[in-house]
């Protein structure tokens, strides 16, 4: 397995290099000039030239790219064009809320969705199945920002149970930290609960129709044992794959929840950088996220062997 992990990690190098080139080129070919934004509405052409020169944007693209690449290889992600803080420091400030909320969303989704999906499969065609699937369709169809607003209105403005906005780090203690992640996580969870419920139902239903399930029933095994030990375990690989894909694609939802709840996370950092054309931040954030995606996919691949003894690394 170690050899496999090393091989996979080595394979990430060309992937990351490709990502770096594509991201750099895309950003620099996209319309928009950070100097124009920094200079403001009333900046003269001379002002803009001066700002571009100071930011190093007057240099040829290839020179800028090689300069950035050399910095990255030395572990330096560069400095923000706007607030002049190191990108690595900005990412360090922002990564905790994004990771915590992302993991909370997926944990919550798994805890709720898998039992619901199994029950729906077990009771396929019944009113319970139809109810769960209807709720899943509703949850899947509701815009994330709308769910966020509804939760804020009810639980923050009316009941005052949770704060409307902001984030407190884990180091502030659970009584300050926990209330700030409940609503943002819940907001995005619905869509993943719906997705995972439907996925679990489909895969478990498929497994339930297999011959060995009939054999298990004939041997007198109880329904909970059949579902938990035989059905769910055999349906786990596609479900775990879906969880991995969900984690990787979570950023879109987190951008919305970070915006709605004014949470200073990676999603907001990226959106602000896009609006401002703050290239070093964007390049740094995308590079870090790409590395995270690669890591998540590796962990998902490795987890397959836990559920399917035929898979060995």
């Amino acid at each position, binding site marked *: 397995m170690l050899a496999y992990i090393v091989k996979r990690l080595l394979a990430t190098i060309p992937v990351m290099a490709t990502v770096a080139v594509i991201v750099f080129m895309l950003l620099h070919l996209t*319309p*928009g*000039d*950070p100097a*124009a*934004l*920094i*200079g*403001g*509405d*009333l*900046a*003269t*052409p*001379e*002002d*803009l030239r*001066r*700002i571009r020169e*100071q930011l190093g944007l007057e240099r040829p693209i290839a020179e800028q790219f090689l300069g950035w690449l050399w910095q990255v290889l030395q572990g330096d992600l560069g400095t*923000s064009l*706007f*607030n*002049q*803080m190191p990108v690595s420091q*900005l990412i360090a*400030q922002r990564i905790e809320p994004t990771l915590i909320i992302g993991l909370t969303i997926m944990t919550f989704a798994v805890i709720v969705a898998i039992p619901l999906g199994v029950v729906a499969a077990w009771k396929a065609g019944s009113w319970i199945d139809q109810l769960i699937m209807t709720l899943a369709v509703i949850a899947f169809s509701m815009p994330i*920002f709308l769910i966020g*607003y509804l939760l*804020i*209105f009810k639980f*923050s*403005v009316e009941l*005052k*149970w*949770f*704060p*409307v*906005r*902001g984030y407190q780090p884990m180091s502030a203690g659970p*009584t*300050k930290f*926990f*209330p700030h992640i*409940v609503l943002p996580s819940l907001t995005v969870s619905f869509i993943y609960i719906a997705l995972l419920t439907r996925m679990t139902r489909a895969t478990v239903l498929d497994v339930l129709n297999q011959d060995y399930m009939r054999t298990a029933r004939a041997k007198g095994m109880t329904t909970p044992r059949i579902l938990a030990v035989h059905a769910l375990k055999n349906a786990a690989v596609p479900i775990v794959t879906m969880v991995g894909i969900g984690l990787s694609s979570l950023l879109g939802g987190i951008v919305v929840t970070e*915006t*709605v*709840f*004014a949470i*200073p996370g990676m999603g*907001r*950092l990226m959106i*602000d950088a896009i*609006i*401002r*054309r703050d290239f070093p931040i964007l390049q740094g954030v995308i590079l870090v996220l790409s590395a995270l995606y690669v890591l998540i996919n590796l962990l998902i691949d490795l987890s397959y062997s836990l559920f399917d003894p035929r898979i060995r690394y």
Partner: protein
Amino acid sequence: MHRRQFIAGASAAATGLATPRLGHTQANRARTLRFAPHADLSFVDPVWTLAYIARNHGFMVFDTLYGLDSGFEPQPQMVAGHVVENDGLLWRLTLRDGLLFHDGTPVRAQDCVASIRRWATADAFGQKLMAVTDELSAVSDREIRFKLKRPFPLLPAALGKASPYMCAIMPERIALTPQTTQIPEVIGSGPFRFLASERVPGASAAYARFDRYVPAPGAPSFVAGAKVAHFDRVEWITIPDAGTAAGALQSGEIDWWEAPPPDLIPLLKGNSKIAVETLDPAGSVGVFRFNHLHPPFNNPAIRRAVLAAVDQAPFMQAVAGDDPAMWNDRVGYFTPGTPMASDAGMAGLFGPRDLAKAKRELAAAGYRGERVVLLAASNIDAIHALAQVAQDLLTRIGMNVDYVSTDWGTVMQRRTSQQPVESGGWSAFVGTWSGNDLVNPAVSISLRGDGKAAGGWLTSPEIERLRDAWFEAPDLAERQKICRALQEQAWQDVPFIPLGQWKTQSARRTSITDLPRGIPLFWGARPS
């Protein structure tokens, strides 16, 4: 676990979640003002950028030698006073006693000289001042001396200007930073200290009251007078979503929201713990800006034909709603209600327009269907609304409009292009300015005719001649007379078209009161 034990435990947990938050809020609320600004504090150097947010931050942290009062007259602020000698050619400014920077060092004339020099490299008013200055020096720790080539009666107004760039006074060691580089430390002598270690870009910034600040004499008035801080701490909290900001204000998580959008005002007004008020009498002004280098708007007759078609009321309805009390559709080249504003040349320019006549005038002026590239920023609500009305108007008078809707970043980049539209250039775009940026020719940067000014590159020797004369005018009456002439000339050259002025409203919790008028300022405000 029994059911009752579970319920009791869950209740305790829920109480535990809510209670600490309430406790935290109550402990700090009395002495902390939580403010949601219109934008994130991206820059902390108010002499490096024209961004309003940096200027607002600047007035918290830095003091100025003079300050404009609510009548836009400069008053001594850091200076105790000045003496003018030699027929206006020698100015001696004396600093007040006891002024300190936030690092505890005294404010010296040398600091002021370095700060003025840094500011004057970037600011148009400062450049004008330095152009007539033979010598700027620190005679002693408390005396600053200007030796001028020609009288410059507006010297206090220049040093006290409230629009970007402000003449922020900082320690000499920091002020020696080239203006092209942001300052490495934010050390001023203003009523609040910037807490750099607490800044999270994109999320928050914090300030603490500077206990050793020595207020100027006199009642506070705009950026002049006594700047007495009643809050120990001010937090700026960036909330990108308006709905969330409304919720935060309603629930008491913030105390003051600088700029709620007009559609949320009725909701906020319905809350008895929230007061909605207009703090900035200068408001905001919409402007239609031309590219004067290329057809069709390099032709002044065509610009005048478009001007003749503009009725400011629909623009204001689009941006500020149907209540005429919230806007002014009789706006000239200077902000209404300020000393330089007048009705010069405005007869017949306002009210419902005859578009058929405007169409004929356009044809008579030589318009032959050239493509008009109208840039519109779709991610800024006010600009988007104004641009849509502008597109409709231009189309209705027969112009061949290519409406290019992008984000503000792209607009800002494209508007720097001096190429014709076929090569990626532009013809016109819509913007908004603070009314404070149109109060006189010194701060109205697009009211220029030097062929170089931002936003359009108009060449008009007469506008430049009048502007130069304004700087040297001996008194207010003469300056007002020149501004009347300048406005009449502007209606002929049409450097840009004013689209009306609207009131920007602020919302605050009733638990705070006495918010200063004008731009967001934090001295004077107090718990109610």
